[in-house]
Structures are given as structure tokens and as C-alpha cells.
């Protein structure tokens, strides 16, 4: 018998001191800790965590998630009428505090003929880990609103802004503007002019390397020195045609006031000094260093395995982003970095941040589980694919070589070649897969679409071409989605989850393509704790 245990890491409103509380459906006492912790049997609605991977890179930039509220009763004293939670609602703060849902097995003691609570709650099966948004009560019950741990990815990335105080603080004209971040390799981006009097520009809030400075598209400056600090850079003496850098702090300075627009190519490092060499390195650095997500809250093992897989498919790929004077959210940047790989960021059952890849399941590939009519409940149904991929695409495109500043005409110096002008006039180059001619996708499906270009931060065209080809393999054939409802005991047995998002499974069930065994990818999970079932959305 399995108890659902909820832990809410509340704090006292008066002092901020930790004041966690604990709930359960059957009631549970964790006797493995001292003093024992009682998970009060007040829980009436244990919540859930529905997760769906975006189906196609143009249909979302992160794993979509919905969370059912956690609700519990507010038992009243039969004599005084006071509700157990009446005073706690006002004295505790739950907003922004950690919430976990754990499934813990009770132990049957045959000698006594009773269920006992012998297992640690921390050793139970994690079903949700996230944060509370707030709570409310109607007197008879209390409702806790929850969400996953990705809230930080939806906030603007940069929380440091120019003060306008001059020097490194920038002029009043750029006061309160976000300081730019550069991570990975970017090309022809427009730096932020922080000190017009000294022609000093900032290109990142961390160290940079491999800096090339252009004026009007021409790299005509000669590098004199690199200084350790902004102050030393500002104090240096430069002459016309020279530039100096402070790579450690992300600045450079010109020896003369430019006539044309200044742009640059560079590689940005992370605040720790880590130099990303691959897209997934940038993603991990963004999560850990820029978003402040502890490495323990990231499924680094899963992401590491994915990185190895992606490297085997596409090699190691240079990529990056530059925020300039904008302040995008991490989700926006992760979309730029991951969409071309058909990957999206989300959380696993443990609440850890993970990256999930939509794949074309190999019909004869290895599966982690097999589900048949012996496991699947009646009511399985075909689900419509999102617009744009309802029928196969005849053309898929991925952008590469992003041009941070599009330039043309008299914004460029006369010495810029025609070939360079062609590159600088476009925001990016495009790699494409297409299927035309007799027997092609376009011939078979006359209403087939040329899918929108998937924007990426990729530098190299060969990698972008591989990814466009992969997108063609993924979306150039008819795909299917099914929702399968299975008993919770099958999907979340006490031994651990049978499947997780992204798992490759075999399904045999009398509906559509599943009638003959089909290999599918799990792209959605909806554990309905109230209904004792888990709905899997599978893709093939």
C-alpha cells in the first residue's frame, strides 16, 4: 500500500525561520528521522504534474507543463470549531517554497497484521518537485497552487543594469539598460558603447576571447594591449587605428572615434571562466551560472548522455548567444540553442531540469518497456498533431551563422567585398532539406508545407545541414500521436518509474498504427493521482 506524501518547505512569516509542514492521503509517519515526522492525513487532492514535449520545434520552446492544485481538508475541533489550518494560513509563507510529492510504500507486518511506516519518505518514488505559488482556503479546505522548478527560466536573464554613473557604469543615456551577456561564439554583434568619451565598448558581463573588431565591416584596427581591468583599459593611451581590450571583464576600447558602425566577433565565457565548446555546454552553463540552478537540481547524467548522443549525430558544434541591449528570458535562449536539435528543456519526475529530444523512433530499436492490452486501459485515442505537421513537410530549414548586425549600403566601408556584403545583409544563412519530384513528399501530399525556418545559434553550416536533414527524416513522413491510459501501478511501481519522458517503448494495442507492435517515444506524461491512472502520450 502506497501513501502519497507532500512536503512543503514553508517559513514563518514573522521570522523567516523554517516551518515545513507535511501531508498525506493515508497518513504516514517517517520514523527514520528524529524526531519522527507525521504526514497528516488531511490530503484530499494530491495534485499532479502533466508534462508534454513540444511536437516540432515551431510548436513550443520548452516542455509544456500543467500542475493540478494540491488540496487538503481543514479539520475542525468538534468543541471549539477552530480549523487546524486557520491560523497557519496567516502565519506561514509558502510562495516560492519547495514542494515535493513522494509516493512511499507502507510495509505490511504479517506478525501483527497491520501496516507500518518503516520506509523513509526521502527514499520514496518522486512524483513531483517544484515550488508553491500560494495558497487559499474556503474554510473547509486549503488549496496550494504549485508549479515546477522552471520559473527561473521565465524571468529576464540579466538582473544587472547600467547605473549611468559613468565609466563602466555607462552614461545616463544607457542607464537602467541591461548589461550584455555573451556565451559561446557569436558573430558581427553590436557592442554597447559605455563611455563615448573614451570610445569604450562592453560586449559581455564575463570574460571573452577571440575578439575581432570591425568598423563598417572591415577589421581595420590593430590590437595594442590587453588589460586586466576596466580601470587600466580606461587609463591606457591609444592612437588612431588601434584598439585595446580588457578581455577578463568583457570590454574593448578604440583609439579613435569611428565613422562607421562598430561590430565584433567573439567567444564569450561564463562568469566562472568556463569556456563552452559545444551547444550543450552553453546550455548547462546558462542553467547553472546564469540562472543559478544548483547542479544538484539538474539531471546532469541525462544531459551528459544526450550530449554524447548529439555529438555522435552532429559532432561538436559551435554556437552561442549575445543579448545586447535586450533582456531575453533563458527559455528564449534555450530555444535558440536547442530547437534545431529537436530538443526542449523541462523537468523530470524528480523535478530536476532535463533536456528531452523528440526523435524518430527506430522501428527495430531497443525499448525500455513493452505495453500491451494487458497494461493499457480502454479509451486509448489518436491525438491530432499540431498545425504545420499534421501532414508531412516537404521542406525543413535550419538557420546558421547568425549575423548579429545586418548591414548594407553606406553602413559598410567601401572596401567590403561583394561576398561579404551578401553575408552581412542577411540575419543568417540557411541549410535545407527538401523532398520534391516524383514519389516525393510534395508529390504524395499536395498540401504539404514548407515548414518555418528553425532559428539556431549554430556557426557551422555542416551541422545545420545535418540537423535540417534530421528534421526532414522526422517530419517528412506521416507521424502519429496517441494517448494511452495505464494503471499507476504499471507506470509508477514501487521499484521506480517504468518510463520517463523521452523513453522509447513498444506498444501493441488495437488502435491505428499501434495494432501491429509499434516503437514509440513517450512525449507526454500525466499522472492522475486522483484517478489512479497515468496517461502517456506516445509519438511515432
Amino acid at each position: 500500500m502506497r501513501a502519497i506524501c507532500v512536503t512543503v518547505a514553508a517559513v514563518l512569516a514573522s521570522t523567516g525561520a523554517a516551518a515545513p509542514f507535511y501531508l498525506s492521503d493515508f497518513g504516514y509517519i517517517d520514523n527514520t528521522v528524529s524526531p519522527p515526522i507525521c504526514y497528516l492525513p488531511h490530503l484530499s487532492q494530491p495534485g499532479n504534474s502533466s508534462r508534454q514535449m513540444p511536437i516540432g520545434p515551431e510548436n513550443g520552446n520548452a516542455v509544456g507543463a500543467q500542475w493540478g492544485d494540491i488540496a487538503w481538508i481543514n479539520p475542525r475541533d468538534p468543541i471549539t470549531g477552530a480549523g487546524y489550518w486557520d491560523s497557519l494560513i496567516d502565519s506561514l509563507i509558502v510562495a516560492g517554497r519547495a514542494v515535493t510529492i513522494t509516493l512511499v510504500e507502507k510495509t505490511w507486518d504479517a506478525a501483527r497484521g497491520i501496516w507500518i511506516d518503516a520506509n523513509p519518505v526521502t527514499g520514496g518514488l518522486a512524483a513531483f518537485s517544484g515550488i508553491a505559488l500560494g495558497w487559499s482556503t474556503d474554510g473547509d479546505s486549503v488549496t496550494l497552487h504549485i508549479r515546477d522548478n522552471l520559473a527561473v527560466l521565465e524571468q529576464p536573464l540579466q538582473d544587472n543594469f547600467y547605473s549611468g554613473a559613468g565609466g563602466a557604469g555607462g552614461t545616463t543615456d544607457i542607464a537602467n539598460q541591461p548589461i550584455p551577456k555573451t556565451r559561446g561564439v557569436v558573430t558581427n554583434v553590436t557592442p554597447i558603447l559605455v563611455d563615448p568619451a573614451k570610445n569604450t565598448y562592453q560586449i559581455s558581463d564575463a570574460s571573452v576571447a577571440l575578439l575581432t573588431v570591425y568598423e563598417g565591416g572591415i577589421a581595420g584596427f590593430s590590437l595594442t594591449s590587453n588589460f586586466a581591468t576596466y580601470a587600466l583599459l580606461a587609463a591606457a593611451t591609444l592612437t588612431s587605428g588601434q584598439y585595446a581590450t580588457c578581455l577578463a571583464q568583457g570590454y574593448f576600447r578604440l583609439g579613435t572615434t569611428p565613422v562607421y558602425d562598430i561590430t565584433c566577433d567573439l567567444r564569450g565565457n561564463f562568469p566562472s571562466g568556463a569556456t563552452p565548446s559545444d551547444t550543450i555546454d552553453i546550455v548547462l552553463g546558462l542553467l547553472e551560472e546564469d540562472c543559478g540552478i544548483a547542479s544538484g537540481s539538474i539531471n546532469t547524467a541525462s544531459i551528459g548522455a544526450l550530449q554524447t548522443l548529439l555529438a555522435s549525430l552532429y559532432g561538436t558544434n559551435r554556437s552561442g548567444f549575445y543579448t545586447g541591449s535586450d533582456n531575453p528570458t533563458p527559455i528564449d535562449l534555450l530555444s535558440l540553442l536547442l530547437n534545431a536539435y529537436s530538443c526542449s528543456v523541462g523537468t523530470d519526475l524528480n523535478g530536476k531540469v532535463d533536456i528531452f529530444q523528440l526523435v524518430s523512433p527506430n522501428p527495430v530499436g531497443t525499448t525500455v518497456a513493452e505495453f500491451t492490452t494487458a497494461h493499457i486501459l480502454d479509451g486509448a485515442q489518436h491525438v491530432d498533431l499540431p498545425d504545420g505537421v499534421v501532414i508531412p513537410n516537404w521542406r525543413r530549414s535550419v538557420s546558421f551563422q547568425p549575423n548579429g548586425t545586418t548591414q548594407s549600403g553606406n553602413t559598410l566601408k567601401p572596401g567590403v567585398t561583394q561576398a561579404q556584403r551578401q553575408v552581412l545583409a542577411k540575419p543568417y544563412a540557411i541549410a535545407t532539406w527538401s523532398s520534391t519530384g516524383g514519389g516525393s513528399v510534395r508529390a504524395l501530399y499536395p498540401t504539404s508545407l514548407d515548414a518555418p525556418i528553425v532559428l539556431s545559434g549554430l556557426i557551422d553550416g555542416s551541422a545545420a545541414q545535418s540537423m535540417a536533414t534530421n528534421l526532414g527524416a522526422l517530419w517528412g513522413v506521416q507521424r502519429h500521436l496517441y494517448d494511452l491510459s495505464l494503471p499507476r501501478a504499471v507506470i509508477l511501481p514501487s521499484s521506480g518509474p517504468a518510463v520517463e519522458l523521452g523513453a522509447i517503448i513498444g506498444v501493441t494495442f488495437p488502435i491505428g498504427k499501434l495494432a501491429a507492435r509499434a516503437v514509440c517515444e513517450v512525449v507526454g506524461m500525466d499522472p492522475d493521482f486522483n484517478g489512479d491512472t497515468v496517461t502517456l502520450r506516445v509519438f511515432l
Partner: protein
Amino acid sequence: MSNAALGYMNFFTASGSIVSDQSHATGFGAANLAGPVGLPGWQSVAGVKTTSIDIDAGVAVSWADAAAGGAVGLFRTNFTNGANLRVRLGTTQGASDVYDSGILTGVVQVGYGQGIILIPAGTGAARWMRFTIGDSTNPDNFIRAGLAFAGPLWQPANNFAYGATNGFQNDSDVQVTRGGQEYVNEKPNYRSGAFAFQLLTASEVNGNVNDIDRTLSIKSNLLFLPDPASSNLQKEAIFGRITKSDQSAHSDFGIHTKNYAIRERL
């Protein structure tokens, strides 16, 4: 067989009572035994497997009815069937000058998790009650109880009618696959019963029956002993909430009826 007995005046929950213990883990004091459900309950400190719970009623009170006697019981326990139990009633804390059950063994039955000691009719008044539990072989290394009762019983002059029910129930959810396989989402057993008194007197209705409706109704716990003299007392007794309490009916001249249903409190 004796007539059924009902216990509805519980000194564990009475407003004038002070419940204490000799050992409890933090947050698991014996005062929790007044709670309506079996958690958090009372639990001894790890390693303590012989200890006592006391009730100070404030003044000398009758723990046993003059005719039906009384009962003291712990429910939702983790006791082994080797546990020994003892109840003492006294004029001072821990004293046995009013009543001493002596150390009783073999009370706790496998699968029921409860231990009840009857107090004989005619036992005098006492201010203090001490319930001592010894369970030296308890594998949990502590002893705990979720609910408790201590107080007098009421025995109607005529027993409940034939057709009374008493037994285990289970509300586990069963999912059936398309292939016919069943998967059970297990929920705990509980016991329940239904019984009807069809030969109550007017004084019983105006006294005990209405007292039960007034003080407990369907919100608080009742001790139901179908047969206090039964050798299966520990298996038959249900401590729980009244789930059905029809209004008493005046069915014939001098005859009143009352239907009850009870569900074990978990």
C-alpha cells in the same frame, strides 16, 4: 452473550481532563490521543517499549457505569500480540487504590491493532487513570497508539435486533485493462457495522440515545462493543464514527427504535 455496550463519554477528550505520558517522541504526546483520527497519535521515544499514559480528570469521576461497567482502550496501535496492558484507577497519579486490572497478556489480537480492558461495574470513583503498556519485543523499537477511549459504558436493556452487521471493508480502486487484467490501487481496510435497537425504553431514548446524538452525532468517535462478554471482544469492538444515526422512532406503545451504523476511525 451479553447485550451490546456503547461508550460515548470519553475522558481522553473531556474538556476537564489532562492527558500526559511518561514518554513521547517530539510532536507525539499522549494529548494527541484526543484527536479524531489515528495520526499523529501518541508514540514513545525510540527504545522505550514499556511506559504509561495518565489521565487526570481533575476530580473524582466514575470510570464505570453502575450496571454496564466501563472500558479503557487504545486503538490504531503498533502493539504485538505479546504486549501486556494494565489499567489502574486511583486517587493519586499512578495509584491503584480504586481499581487495578493487573497485568493482562493476550489482549492484542493479530490484525486488529487494539487493546481494550473492561472495568467492572460498581468500581468506585477515581481522579486518576493510568494505562501501562509493555511490549518489549515490539520490532518498531517504540510503541504507539492513534486513538483512545476511557469511560463508562451504556448497555441497553434489550440487545440489538437480528441482522446486525460487523466486518472488514476495503475501498481499493481497481483498474481493468482491455485485456481483462486487474490492477489494484490498494487502500487500507477498515471495519464497520450496522445495528438497530428495536426495544428501547423511553428513558433510554431520552437519556443515553439522545445523549449520544447530542454529544457525538456523526462527528465524534463512539466505542461499540457488540458483546462485552465475548471471548472475541478485541476483534468485535469498533472505535469509530457513527455514520448513520436515524432519529429514534416510537414504533409501538412503550417501544422505541434506533438504527446505527459505525465506521472504524483510521
